[in-house]
């Protein structure tokens, strides 16, 4: 048999495999429990892979995700008060919080258990995130009506874009039909996509942005329609927020557009009350930062451009490569992981840099999961400037750490599933073919004489899946073990663990893609 080097001796009986893989397992468990890596609360069955070490703790969301989920539930109107920053993840175990989660799960047609696991987490992303693709049909009742959760999400989106005045409240009332009709008409008029349901236009990614650009390019730049102007202002704020700039999404028309705003407030000047235009300093600052820090305009030009919301601004959001002053060089995800690693390794004390980055991640909050697609689109279009922003580099680091962690955890789970099969001593593919797995990994097969061809083929597939899933999971885990050994001498801290996952992401990915075929 070719391709198989001879074994020098017998299978090592000193427990070296258990020890090495066990160390990786402990790191994985620790990173997930501490909330260092980004993952939804483990499903209860995930606890089995860690055995007694888990102690039930993995069922809790990590701190960063809990803060995001709590904020998303508030945005959807399930909480009256905005959650404090960095609330303790222990709050998710309180009766009150679980009651709220159950209400969301009921209204969204999910399994009602009061825990934010994978299903509930992804549901929140689909309904709240600007960049997550949302299939509206997924959130309809059997009768074809929108679920209450979808209605809340639509209200939230309409508010964020400035199309209605308030976000959803705890005692939720659907937006009146007349108001919905007006929104629908506006969106159809703006996008000219009359065959698409206006709610799909609303929940789509960059649909409204592209339509606004077309509208501004076809007009002379003035916007007399108040509802349209408010939509344009808030679309701009959303896009800047997604790029990581410090601007608040509030649905308000609080910025002069073409030197006109209809938002005023009453102030006392010289003993008299007058109405003055409201200007959002944060918005102006974010616009300046956009032109100067990201697109490379000099300070005066950036300040000047921040005074207007023009077709040029929206065009730059959609086609940044035409506005940046950087050298054009597209990067792949895997190459970017190297740039991120180099950034952190250049900080001197890498562990402290990663520690500081983790603190930043907790502050960034919802932006951990929103804006990532735009960031990557900009990178692939050759806009390098954005990667120099420390916050985006931090987000990049944790993105790759998360993806690398997910690869590792999938490998551990796949190995575990294969070992469980091995411990049972047999593969159950069909009733007509029986496969025994002997303790030394030998196989015995019994084929019934009346076995159909498809049953035999199914058994072949089962054997192939079992053995290749095990092989690729061993390859990945063995690789990580070797990389961790090479990274440091002595104990491996969680920071080095994450850095290893990020640095060698592009080595892990091709093997993972092969594993995915069989896992």
């Amino acid at each position, binding site marked *: 048999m070719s391709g198989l080097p001879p074994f020098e001796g017998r299978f090592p009986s000193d427990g070296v495999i258990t020890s090495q893989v066990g160390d990786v397992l402990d790191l994985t468990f620790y990173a997930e429990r501490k909330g260092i890596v980004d993952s939804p609360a483990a499903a209860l069955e995930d606890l*089995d892979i860690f055995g007694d070490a888990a102690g039930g703790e993995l069922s809790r969301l990590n701190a960063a995700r809990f803060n995001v989920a709590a904020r998303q539930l508030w945005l959807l109107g399930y909480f009256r008060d905005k959650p404090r920053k960095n609330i303790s993840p222990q709050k998710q175990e309180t009766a009150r919080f679980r009651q709220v989660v159950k209400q969301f799960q009921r209204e969204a047609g999910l399994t009602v258990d009061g825990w934010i696991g994978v299903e509930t987490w992804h549901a929140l992303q689909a309904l709240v995130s600007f960049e997550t693709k949302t299939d509206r049909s997924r959130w309809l009742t059997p009768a074809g009506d929108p679920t209450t959760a979808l209605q809340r999400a639509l209200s939230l989106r309409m508010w964020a874009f400035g199309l209605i005045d308030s976000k959803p409240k705890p005692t939720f009332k659907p937006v009146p039909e007349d108001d919905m009709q007006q929104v629908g008409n506006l969106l159809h008029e703006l996008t000219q996509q009359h065959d698409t349901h206006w709610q799909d236009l609303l929940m789509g990614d960059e649909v409204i942005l592209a339509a606004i650009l077309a509208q501004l390019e076809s007009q002379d730049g003035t916007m007399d329609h108040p509802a349209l102007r408010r939509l344009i202002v808030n679309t701009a704020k959303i896009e800047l927020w997604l790029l990581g700039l410090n601007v608040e999404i509030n649905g308000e028309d609080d910025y002069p557009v073409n030197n006109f705003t209809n938002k005023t407030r009453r102030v006392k000047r010289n003993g008299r009350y007058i109405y003055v235009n409201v200007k959002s300093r944060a918005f102006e600052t974010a616009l300046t930062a956009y032109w100067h820090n990201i697109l490379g305009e000099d300070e005066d030009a950036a300040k000047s451009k921040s005074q207007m919301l023009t077709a040029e601004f929206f065009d730059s959001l959609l086609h940044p490569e035409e506005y940046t002053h950087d050298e054009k060089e597209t990067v792949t995800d895997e190459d970017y992981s190297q740039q991120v690693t180099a950034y952190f390794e250049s900080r001197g004390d890498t562990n402290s840099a990663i520690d500081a980055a983790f603190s930043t991640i907790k502050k960034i909050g919802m932006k951990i999961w929103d804006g990532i697609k735009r960031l990557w689109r900009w990178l692939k279009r050759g806009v390098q400037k954005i990667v120099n922003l420390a916050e985006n580099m931090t987000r990049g680091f944790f993105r790759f750490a998360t993806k690398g962690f997910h690869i590792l955890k999938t490998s551990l789970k796949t190995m575990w599933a294969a070992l469980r099969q091995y411990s049972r001593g047999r593969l159950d593919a069909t009733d007509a073919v029986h496969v025994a797995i002997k303790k030394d990994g030998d196989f015995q097969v*019994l084929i019934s004489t009346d076995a159909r061809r498809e049953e035999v083929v199914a058994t072949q597939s089962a*054997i192939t899946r079992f053995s290749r899933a095990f092989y690729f999971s061993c390859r990945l885990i063995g690789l990580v073990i070797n990389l961790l050994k090479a990274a440091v001498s002595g104990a491996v801290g969680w920071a080095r663990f994450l850095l290893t996952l990020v640095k060698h992401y592009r080595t892990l990915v091709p093997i993972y893609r092969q594993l995915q075929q069989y896992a």
Partner: protein
Amino acid sequence: MGLRNALSALNNAVDDLTSLHVQTFTGNIAFDHDTQNYDDIRQLIQQAQTNADVVLVAESLYKFDGDSYNFLANAESGIPASALELHKAAIEGGIKTRQGLMELVKDVFDS
């Protein structure tokens, strides 16, 4: 069983990976699939309610020091092609499983 315990069980059970032994049988036996425990087809055959016409149709034994042994039954009707394909898949599966374990202990073997 957690992963660590599963690996310990593997560690305790596996004794010799220096050879690969695959056997393929055909025949008809009747047994209760859900309750039957077996880790050996021969044991399964013995425990079955009926074991008419169970024959060994293919057997391969590979020792990694170079020796190998292959047996194919010489039945008049011929060995079913599907049995041979499955036998081959089991050999490949056995190799892949061993290669996986090697990936985990490469450093041990190299040192």
